[in-house]
């Protein structure tokens, strides 16, 4: 089977120790997590994990099932890149002494649509929001000028392109099934 980039979106209760359980499943399959982002979700009290990994579909499906099996995980679904809108954020700290003599660097920054958020006489900090590829490309460009003092990028965050909100539907169904069985 072919390896691809998959994004796994997991919703879980907001309990201590769950992150460990989620990542442990990847460890068991010896699959590297490329990026991981944990945040609040649109549903109060639920956490959302956005995890990217390069693997084959069979493995990501098994991983998703095993994660979903954890008692306090609500759902785990995997997506290919065309099934999601995804973004990352990167921060670059650039050396000023070099940057100011290099107008080309400034041109690259604006070409890539990055924003300057701090300028002083020692360094410049820029923020770039975009796809993984755009951020990698910008990083590579800037590296050519030997100006990058620090570089950091966030995990991927993603929302699905689908019209259905699986998690909300799942939770509603759980509630209504429960009410049904407990009336009779």
């Amino acid at each position, binding site marked *: 089977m072919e390896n691809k980039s998959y994004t796994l979106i997991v919703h879980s209760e907001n309990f201590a*120790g769950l992150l460990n359980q989620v990542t442990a499943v990847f460890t068991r399959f010896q699959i590297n997590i490329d990026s991981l982002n944990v945040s609040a979700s649109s549903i109060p009290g639920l956490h959302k994990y956005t995890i990217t990994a390069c693997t084959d579909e069979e493995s990501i499906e098994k991983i998703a099932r095993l994660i979903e*099996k954890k008692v306090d995980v609500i759902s785990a679904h995997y997506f290919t890149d065309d099934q999601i809108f995804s973004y990352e954020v990167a921060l670059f700290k650039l050396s000023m002494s070099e940057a100011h003599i290099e107008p080309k660097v400034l041109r690259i920054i604006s070409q890539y649509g990055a924003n300057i958020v701090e300028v002083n006489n020692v360094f410049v900090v820029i923020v770039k929001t975009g796809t993984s590829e755009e951020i990698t490309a910008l990083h590579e460009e800037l590296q050519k000028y030997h100006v990058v003092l620090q570089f950091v990028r966030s995990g991927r965050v993603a929302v699905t392109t689908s019209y259905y909100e699986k998690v909300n539907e799942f939770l509603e169904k759980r*509630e209504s099934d*429960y009410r049904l069985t407990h009336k009779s």
Partner: protein
Amino acid sequence: MKSKDKIQYEKDAKPLRITGAEALIRSLEYQGVKTIFGYPGGAIMPVYDALYGNKTLNHILVRHEQAAAHAAEGFARASGEVGVCLVTSGPGATNTVTGIADAMIDSTPIVVIAGQVAASTLGMDAFQEVDLVGITQPITKWSYQIRSATDVAWAVARAFYIAGSGRPGPVVLDFAKNAQLDMTDYLPTKVDFVRGYVPEPEMDDDAISEAAQLINNSKHPFVLAGHGIELGNAVEEFKTFIHKADLPTGATLLGLSVLPSDDPLNMGMLGMHGKLVTNVKTNECDVLIAVGMRFDDRVTGKLSAYAPQAKIVHFDIDPAEINKSIHVDVAVVGDCRKTLAAVTALLSQGDHSEWKKSFEPYIKKENDKVVHPELHPSKEFMTMGEVINAVSEATSHKAILVTDVGQNQMLAARYFKYSSPRSILTSGGAGTMGYGLPAAIGATFACPDRTVCLFVGDGGLQMNLQEFGTIMEQRAPVKIILLNNNFLGNVRQWQAMFFNHHYSFTPMMNPEYPAIASAYGIASRRVMKREELAEAIDEMLCTDGPFLLEACVEQEGNVLPMTPPGSPIDQMILEIK
């Protein structure tokens, strides 16, 4: 944490102002617990104090915490209820880890309650602090630290709900000492809904009709019966299912007592040391129907050569089992009690006499080459098989079989017979030596009216030998049949077959077992010759209470037939020249 669970409080109950430890005891009672296997220590002393003088809970003091976990497993497997064990923090807790892992892989519902240092000292390397939740998370369905007395009733209710529902499994409650000592307003509590946890996936009507259609159109169907049928209390539904469509059936190690041994459709055990016929027919059938089993590698052998010709239908309650190792054509997820009934309703009456006839040559071949020589040996020393067979017959095949691990286990599985469900307790997925003795103790408490026969090797008996103490104190009527071959026999067999007879650390010097038994006041008898066997078994069964029967069997007997590891499952070795 509890906010989204559905919690039921006992109607009209008034809150009781008690300690967390007392709340634990009340919660266990409220769950219907009658028996606990445990061992005290510093961090669980408030709970032991609350147990003092308690008349409802029968606390069985084991001699090692590993045994508490296995006894809880044996209790759970024999009774169908959740087994409970109670231990202290640190080493007390880590001693249960093997039992927890064993319960996880064999889907056995147990709740392990361990003491923990006070919440205020957590993370400070306090005396007997270990990160039990961290250690047990990968080997439990749920592992939770109770840090506040107000959590106790809910956590216990949730623990029992999770352990016992859906695909059963172990739950750990790590009970911080401050939470044991603090006061709380206790209310009898039940949990029956955890929103992220779907114990029973919904039945899919399309899958039901596809499964029925495949079975109805099948000329050569073959069924694999697993432990899940007993766990799902679906034995009757299963029998109706196979008998309506006339489906010959093989069983996994843990599923051996699903069907009575004399059911005409029961073709016996699957897998590495199973029946030749079940493995051959797995690879000949046109439709393979697996119910409540997980295609363990000991059942499948080489995966790529496993039933490549067959359409496969898989009934399971756990969606994560579907396509895990074997790709299936129809997945029937859900509670097999319901799914089996639904499929059965769509089945036409079947008659597969011709197909079943084709089973006979393989049964005969194995009988001639393997079974007959094992049960009626011409050699001087007794074989394990003849001892097992004689015990099974002497109990009219009605006893609960408990095994340890090794040759004793495989041969007991092959030659013991069953008349009712929940009659085999064995460590399948984990293969835990030392499981047998404590599990058998647990079974005597679960089923005081049944005879409990343990077959155990000289290696495995010594892995939890200290439990003779528990047996002595409780007069637990375990019939211990020690199959003594003076070897770690199973490993020796592999060394003989695959490692040039290099008997690397498998011969073992043994103590005088009857002398040990006698030190514990356990009646015993050693049998060297087959002429004494029947009488010794009689003596064992007629003796009230525990008994040790040491059968000195041939030293280098082999378990046959055998599919070598990594070979196609139907390529069985029947004799070693």
